């Protein structure tokens, strides 16, 4: 587990830490990009909406491997959010909205996404397929 200060300038550093942890898995670039995008979206949400840029608050990030899955969790110190309230950004009336795509993208790019009861933690699962490992090792 590692902590990230609530500063958007720290996002890249945190991403590099996650990618370094994934180095030994020989994942395809496609798979790595899905994980990177999902992690960054979750971290940015945590810094912006969860911790509201309060640098006294940090974001807890964790990466574990369970069987054939990579599990990444991102938890802020905010009040929590009801993720059921997020509007579907793909509906015609929401297409031109400039926000509200982060969690939607995470749900599309990861295999399983859940939230804790308080609504201040997102848990993202990505299954590692043999195909991924082969493509990554080329």
């Amino acid at each position, binding site marked *: 587990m590692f902590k990230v200060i609530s500063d*958007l*300038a720290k*996002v*890249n550093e945190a991403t590099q830490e996650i990618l370094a942890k994934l180095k030994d898995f020989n994942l395809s670039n*496609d798979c790595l*990009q899905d994980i*990177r*995008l999902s992690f*960054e*979206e979750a971290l*940015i949400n945590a810094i912006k909406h969860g911790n509201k840029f309060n640098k006294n608050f940090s974001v807890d990030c964790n990466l574990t491997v369970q069987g054939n899955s990579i599990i990444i969790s991102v938890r802020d110190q905010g009040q929590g959010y009801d993720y059921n309230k997020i509007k579907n*950004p*793909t509906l*015609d009336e929401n*297409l*031109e*909205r*400039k*926000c509200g*795509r*982060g969690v*939607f*993208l995470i749900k*599309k*790019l990861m295999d399983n996404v859940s939230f804790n009861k308080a609504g201040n933690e997102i848990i993202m699962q990505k299954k590692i397929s043999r195909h991924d490992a082969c493509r990554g090792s080329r």
Partner: protein
Amino acid sequence: MNFEIKEKHLGDITICSIAGEININTSLNMRKGFEKLACENSRKIILNLGSVSYIDSSGLATLIEMLQRVKRNNGVMRLSNLSEKVSSLFEITKLDKLFNIFSNEEEALKNF
């Protein structure tokens, strides 16, 4: 920062080739580059995204903002040369319905 915009003009058409990542850290640079275009009153714009390796939701939001500004100015903005990965993000988010997307610059230039 891994981001660059190069601009060229073909008659009244402005082609902006963007390279690098369009993310929360580079969106501001892109917006600034676009302010310049707005000042020049460009109404026909092609964004060549062929060298864009990564777009996040704030990058998508910046592109939407740019499109809205061009439309308000009675202009047209087209996207071209999207990589498979970037293209898939437009499909997933259904933004391919909002933007005019072409496979390459030549196609984007047709009937402009």
